[in-house]
Structure formats: C-alpha cells, structure tokens
C-alpha cells in the first residue's frame, strides 16, 4: 500500500490543553480507495479530518497528502484536497452558478479550465437545471450532488466527505454512492464519514476511532472476521420475553456479545463448551441460526466497547 499511498498519517497527535483529541494515529490510504471513517461523536474523527484537510496543524506527527504536508504550508495541502461537510453545503440565497463561481475564484481557477471542469462535473452528476437556479429551490439530494461538484472543482486528488448523506432520502443516498464510486473509479481517493452502516459496507476499508485512537482498520469483511472470531448467531424470540430477562442475557455466561438487532438479537458464543451446555435451553425460547456478524455488530463491539 505504502508505495501508492495518497493519504498518509504518521503518529498524529492533537491536544487541546490537557485534552488529547487525537492520540498517535497512523494509517495510509491508496489512490482510488473509498475509505470509511467511523466512530462515535467526539471520538476524534472531525479533528483528524481537520488535520488532513490542512485546517489544523497537529501537535505531533505529520501528514502527507498527495505528497505534501504541513512543512509545505497549509495552503499546499488545501490545493490537494476537496472538502464537503454535512453541516453546510452551498449558500441558499445564491444561485448554483454564483456558488460555483465563488468557490472557483477562492481557488483562483483559470476561467477556461474552470468552465471545462464545471461542465464535466455537472455532466457527472447529471445536473439538468439552469445555472441561475437558486440553491434553496433544489432538493436535498441535488444540493448534495452540486456540493460534491463544488468540492471537486479544483480537481483535487483527495476528497473528504463529512457525513455527506445526512438528511438525504434513501434514493438520494443510493444515487450519491453511485457518484462516490465513479469519483473513486476516476482515480480520486475518497475519505468518507457516515453513521449509516449500509454505507460503511460500501467502503473499501473502514477505520474505527474511539477516544482519539484508531481501534480497528480493515475491509468490512476483514473487520467482521477479526472482531468476531467466535461464531455469531441470530436469535429470534419465539414467545414474549420480559425486558429484565433479555437484559440478563447481555451478561449471561454463554455469550460474549448479545445485542438487539431490530426485533431480533445478535449473539456471539463465549466458548464452544458453554455454548454446547446452554444451547438446548435457549432453543426453546429462540429460533437460532448462525449468521455472519453485521458491520453494526462490529461497530457496537469496537466503538461502543460493551463487554
């Protein structure tokens, strides 16, 4: 991976006074990779992204973004990356054209190159409205797509998408992920944070952060294997079970993991012996079938660190 690494973080530390927001994290991301960044709120995701975007010099460690780091200046990093946040996308009281023109002039793009790039990107997102359309008249999904185009306007090698599909309809999300795959297919490295596990499944690799540390980094399939070495089962209650009884299973000796999953439960066996001893009794209460753990199970086990 290292020879093709586009994003590289080496022992990043970010401190705010006594508080360590990011604690010695290192990783490398290759060209054209879709890299998912997951973690609970306050785990240090946003701070890490700010460092990688050239917004916040780290207290220790360094980054290499398409070959440049803080040694070359924050602006050099900003030239290499595009950034799109869920909090703010485009100015509502400006037209689509005015918004794009504004970003282009902030980045001092060549007028001819800008117009060509804009046409390409609007074709990519299949934008069929006039440039004079007011942003406030666009639907949430379209707005998100135009915002992606704005982040890609300067043709960056890396693009950060901070919860890009928050508040977008399922169809809009599906379409947006289609665009992400096309952007990555075009050779750009896509860094994405999300709270949707189905979106995390679509990432090439997923990094999990907890309390400022990188606690897991692998492909979704690899994470499931390493986080759950023991067999995992789905428990479907046959009759009604009291809340107390279900809560008791969370600390039951037969399970190393027991969490609700919709109306059902996902459980991991603590050991083959204990499982063999308890299975007959449990089968009277639940329909039990072996499954592969979901990414949500991984997230709960690693990030929320129950058990």
């Amino acid at each position, binding site marked *: 991976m290292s020879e093709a690494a586009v994003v590289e973080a080496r022992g990043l530390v970010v401190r705010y006074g006594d508080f360590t927001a990011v604690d010695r994290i290192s990783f490398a991301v290759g060209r054209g990779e879709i890299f998912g960044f997951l973690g609970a709120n306050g785990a240090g995701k946003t701070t890490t992204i700010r460092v990688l975007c050239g917004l916040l010099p780290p207290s220790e460690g360094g980054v290499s973004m398409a070959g440049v780091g803080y040694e070359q200046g924050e*602006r050099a990093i900003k030239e290499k990356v595009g*950034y799109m946040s869920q*909090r*703010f996308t485009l100015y509502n009281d400006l037209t689509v054209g005015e918004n794009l023109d504004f970003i282009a*002039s*902030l*980045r*001092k793009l060549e007028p001819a190159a800008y117009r060509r790039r804009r046409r390409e990107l609007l074709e990519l997102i299949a934008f069929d409205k006039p440039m004079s359309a007011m942003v406030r008249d666009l639907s949430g999904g379209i707005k998100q797509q135009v915002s992606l185009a704005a982040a890609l306007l300067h043709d960056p090698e890396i693009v950060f998408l901070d919860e890009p599909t928050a508040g977008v309809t399922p169809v809009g999300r599906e379409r947006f992920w289609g665009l992400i795959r096309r952007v990555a297919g075009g050779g750009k490295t896509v860094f994405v944070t999300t709270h949707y596990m189905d979106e995390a499944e679509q990432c090439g690799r997923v990094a999990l952060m907890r309390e400022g540390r990188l606690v897991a980094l692998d492909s979704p399939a690899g994470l499931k294997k390493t986080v759950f070495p023991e067999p995992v089962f789905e428990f479907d209650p046959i009759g009604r079970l009291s809340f107390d009884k279900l809560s008791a299973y969370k600390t039951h000796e037969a399970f190393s993991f027991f969490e609700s999953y919709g109306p059902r439960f996902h459980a991991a066996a603590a050991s083959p012996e204990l499982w063999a001893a308890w299975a007959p009794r449990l089968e009277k209460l639940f329909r039990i079938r072996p499954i592969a753990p979901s990414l949500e199970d991984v997230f709960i086990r690693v990030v929320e660190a129950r058990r």
Partner: protein
Amino acid sequence: MTFVPARAGAVARKEWFHIRRDPFTLALALVLPLLMVIVYGVAIDFNVKEIHLAVSDLDQSQASRRLIDTFSSSHYFRPRPEASAALATADLSDERARAALIIPPRFEKDLLAGRGAKVQILLDGADNSTVGPISQYVASIQALASRRLAGVDPSPPYQLRTRFLFNPELNSRWFVIPGLTVVIMAILSIFLTALTVAREWENGSMELLLSTPVEPIEIIVGKAAPYAALGILATAFVYVIARGVFGVPFAGHLWVFALGCLLFLVTYLAQGLLISVLTRQQTIAMQFSMLTGMLPSNLLSGFIFPIASMPRLFWYLTMLLPARWFMVISRHAFLEGSGFSELAVPFAALALSCATMVALAARSFRRTLE
C-alpha cells in the same frame, strides 16, 4: 501570510449577492439613515421657540400691554389671551400653553406709585426639557421689560452682549445632524458585520471557506468591504441632507472628516467582528451589538446628553468609547472648521481605540480557528 486581493474580492462579491437578496440588510442600510435624519432633524426640535404663553391681563392698562408686547416681540413667546387667571392656569394643565402670565388688576397703579408691582409667571414644571430655557428667556425679558416700563433709556452703564460662535442661531439641527453620522455609522458597521460573520459561523460555512486556500484576513476584508461601503454611502447621504436640506454649514476640511469616518468605521467593523467571533450566533450577536454599539453611541457619546454633565464615573467611561471621540471630530469638522491640530486629542484617542479593537478582533478570530 499573504493577502490576495482577488480572493478578498470574491468574498466581497459573494457578500454583495447576499445583501442584494436580503431585504432586511438593504432596508437597514438605506432606510435607517433616512428615518433617523427625519426623526432627529425634523420631528425632534431641541430649540425652544414660539412658546405658547397664556396671558391673563386683569389690568388692561398701557403698562400691562407694554409688558405683553415685550414678550411677544421677543419671538420666543406667542401670547394667548385669556379672560381670567383660572382659564390661563387651565391652559397649562391642558397643555395648550407652556407658560402663563398673570397680570393683577392694580399693576399699573402699583407700578406708578412705586409700590413694587407684582406679576406672576407660571411654568409647566412637569416638562423638564423646556422649563430651563423658558425661565432663562423670562429672566432676560424681565430685565428688558423693567427698563421699558420704567421709561429709562434702555442703555445701562455697560452692556453684556452674548454672541454664540460657530452656531450663531443656536440651531439644534446644526448640532444634532453632524452627530447623526456617528450614530448611523455605529449602527450599520457593528450590526451588519456582527450579523453576517456570525451567520457564517452559525451555518458552518466558515469551515467550508477555510477548507479553500482563502486566508482569514481575506475573508474579513472581503466580508467587511461591502458593509464599509454601505456605511460610507449612508454617511455621504447624511452629509448631503445635512448640507442641502437643513443648511448645516460645513466649515472644516472634508478630508479631516473623512479620515475620522474611516478610523471610526474600521473600529466598529472590528468590534462587530469581535462580537461575531465571541457569540457565533446571529441572535446573540444582534443583542450584543445593540448593547455595545447602538446604546452607547446614542446615550454616552454626547449625541443627546452632554458628556460634561454626566456623573464622574460615566464621564471616565465615555473616554473608552470611540463614538464619543468621533462625535467631537464630526461636530468640530462641521461647525468649527477645526483641523488636525485642534482635534489632536480626539484623533489620537480614536486611532488608539481603532488599533486596539482591530488587534483584539484579529487575535480572537485567529484563536478560534486553531
């Protein structure tokens, strides 16, 4: 850190689009000065003239008529004859008159007999703002009237001649309107900057701006420029109205006034920026700008209430207020034609507060980005 004018220009252009589509901002920038000029220039007249004077002349003599004539010929009073003392008093309580003059029946006789004739003047003490000037007028008219009634040559051994310099007619508009430029600029610059920069924080677009190569200084300059232009436009507008409509003279040098304007504008733009950085929310930013910009520039700058007569503590407090110093500069530039040498103190104070405010704003802005 480098400053690229083109990027600041891009921010300024974007801001202009916001202003153009936001009726509130435009209204505030254009209608407010007009409204304030009308209210302060036309509706509120601090001059006390043509005071209605209820007159009950129970003597109906040559002397009493001469006394009344002295009042009416002064142009300060407009007599309103009433049949009895009770009716004249009633005029006061019904606010048909601000003062009442009651001449008793034996006025002329007592006067001629040298028995010390008595005349009663009643003033509406509830109206604190007019009672002072009126009693002053009454005193001077009394002096004049007693000479005329005594039939002596109205030229005493010496004459005290008061001449009011710079504003010979004591026209309050001449005094108020140059002050208005201060208040209007204070409101526009603090209010609009605080609101628009707070908006970028509030909706998260500041983060997006900062993810591009734009420098913080370019954002600030770009965002402040359109509002500075609006502030200057409003000031020019007030200036034209002052000169054209109200005939306020401009005795000084335009560039002294312009430099004062610029220093003051930059100070308050910086203060607006500081507020926006500290509050980061439009609603709180609005309240803070009212509290630290609008109110002091109205009440503590000497615009309405004279600073000299403030309690000691407030008198010292006003020293910290840029509006107080610009008020001096504006009034002196308009009415006295003062140059830099006369205005050295206010200019130094204004420059100092400008530098302090810019440094404070820049520091807090820089800090929040880290």
